[in-house]
């Protein structure tokens, strides 16, 4: 299997290539704009390994599809779409929270792992995974948003009575609420590991999760990004009312 994989959803983007048994990686560290350096990093990775004919030989292009920073996941998706359509190659859309989990627990301990990543606005993206004895990361919930200050544990947990779970966190600004049970192991990561990216890509390919380039999409989770006209009017009315009351 020959796969090109990349992720641009965080400050440290990465590129990884699975070329049959060989693995090649490249981290883009210290760049403010992944968009200007991603394709050069891919070219460099192929060139350094002498893979001049990669366009013909590659089997699939994998990308970190989110949830994560909107611009970052969209960049990865648009790059994958452009390359995939130009070459007629399928894509693999990789769940960003699984990438966090795999980066934090590369040894793949069996059991439940709860993964959370910063979603700004006081919220986390989160998802539960069951890691099998064979090291497969099987999602047990849909990716979702949670506010750690207001959510109850029984609303979040897939097994509220069970407390045996590991936790993987990615750049969380909010603290762990005291009312939640403590995980028996917690690991924090600062960047997606290229090895985790490839492990997820290999797993997706093994399960034949290929999508056509014109069907691949980012995963945002946060769907409400603007106020409708009615909501804008209601907000203005509320502000007017508050101003009237404060004057009174």
């Amino acid at each position, binding site marked *: 299997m020959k796969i090109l994989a990349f992720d641009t959803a965080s400050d440290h983007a990465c590129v990884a290539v699975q070329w049959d048994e060989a693995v090649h990686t490249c981290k883009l560290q210290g760049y403010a704009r992944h*968009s*200007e*350096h*991603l*394709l*050069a990093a*891919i*070219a460099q990775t192929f060139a350094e390994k002498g893979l001049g004919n990669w*366009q013909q030989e590659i089997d699939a292009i994998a990308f970190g599809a989110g949830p994560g920073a*909107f*611009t970052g996941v*969209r*960049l990865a*998706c*648009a*790059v*994958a*779409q*452009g*390359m995939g*359509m*130009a*070459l*007629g190659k399928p894509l693999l859309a990789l769940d960003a929270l699984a990438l966090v989990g795999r980066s934090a627990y590369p040894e793949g301990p069996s059991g439940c792992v709860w993964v959370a990543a910063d979603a700004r606005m006081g919220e986390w993206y989160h998802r539960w995974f069951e890691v099998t004895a064979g090291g497969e990361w099987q999602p047990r919930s849909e990716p979702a948003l949670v506010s750690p200050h207001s959510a109850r544990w029984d609303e979040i947990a897939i097994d509220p009575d069970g407390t045996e779970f590991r936790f993987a966190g990615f750049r969380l600004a909010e603290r762990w609420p005291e009312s939640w049970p403590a995980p028996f192991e917690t690991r924090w990561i600062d960047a997606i590991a290229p090895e985790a990216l490839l492990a997820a890509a290999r797993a997706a390919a093994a399960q034949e999760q290929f999508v056509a*380039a*014109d*069907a*691949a*999409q*980012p995963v*945002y989770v946060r769907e409400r*990004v*603007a*106020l*409708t*006209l009615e909501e*804008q009017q209601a907000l203005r009315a509320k502000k007017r009312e508050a101003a009237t009351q404060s004057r009174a």
Partner: protein
Amino acid sequence: MKGILAIETSCDETGVALWDRASGLVAHELFSQVALHARYGGVVPELASRDHVRRLPQLVARALAQARWTPADVDLVAYTAGPGLAGALLVGAAFAESWAFARGVPTMPIHHLEGHLLSPLMAAPDLAFPFVALLVSGGHTQLLWVEGVGRYRLLGETIDDAAGEAFDKTAKILGLGYPGGPQLAKLAERGDATRFALPRPLIQSPEIAFSFSGLKTAVALAAETVGRDPQARADLAASFQAAVIDVLVAKTVRAVELTGARRLVAAGGVTANARLRARLAAELEALGCSVVFPPPQWCTDNGAMIAHAAAQRVRLGFPVKQDYRVTIHPRWPLPL
């Protein structure tokens, strides 16, 4: 290898075109996001970006099928690199550069307004340079002296709102739907343009400059006196439209007189306004200056104008890009 794949994603329209070097435009696809943004009363940049990444590859696939091209037929990828919404531009630029990188072909970033101002040449390829170009849209109001492809001199522009923006904001004040410009023009058709004495900002000034924010404020004040009276609302719409057209025409006349131009090209979404077209044609032709408008289908944003601009640049030997850096210019002055 046959020609150019062109991509436009600068605002709320996803445009794709294929341009054959021998026969010109062979396919174009356009998806307008108007319905998506209507419930928000204006373009929501994040939603615009999301829709571009959803539609763009599908439109490219349809254009390829329409022209019976394969990806191997594309020997240059052109795309709008600015000005526009950063997130929206990034989708088109990333797709375009990645396609080109994978196929080993060059790219050509195109200025959105150059696409607009050269678009009348698609229908009138014999149109001779030089000419004055009036670019008037929701994001821009400019007069330029155009000596040739890539040879532009700014004569003047708006110091605040664009004319199309003023149309949209006034429509919002009047409670009209989005996009407001066409709806305001429709309402104005049954209004009395002399009922409200609205200002014509800078109309007496000898300089070529536009200002529409004061006019918008005057409309907001007048609207408070109008209430729900349908005739009064139509009169206010007509008065506003007349004020904008008076200013646009007066400054265009001034630009033509200053330059001695024999031709005017008017482009951008606002030039779809029938009254503006009629006034420009009447007043400039009286001065011996012919007026050229792009066909209505090329007045809105579209991929064909980007393909056309790239084809002109290639024909004249302008350099192509092959560094595969995804670089966008959300703010990009036109005299390049």
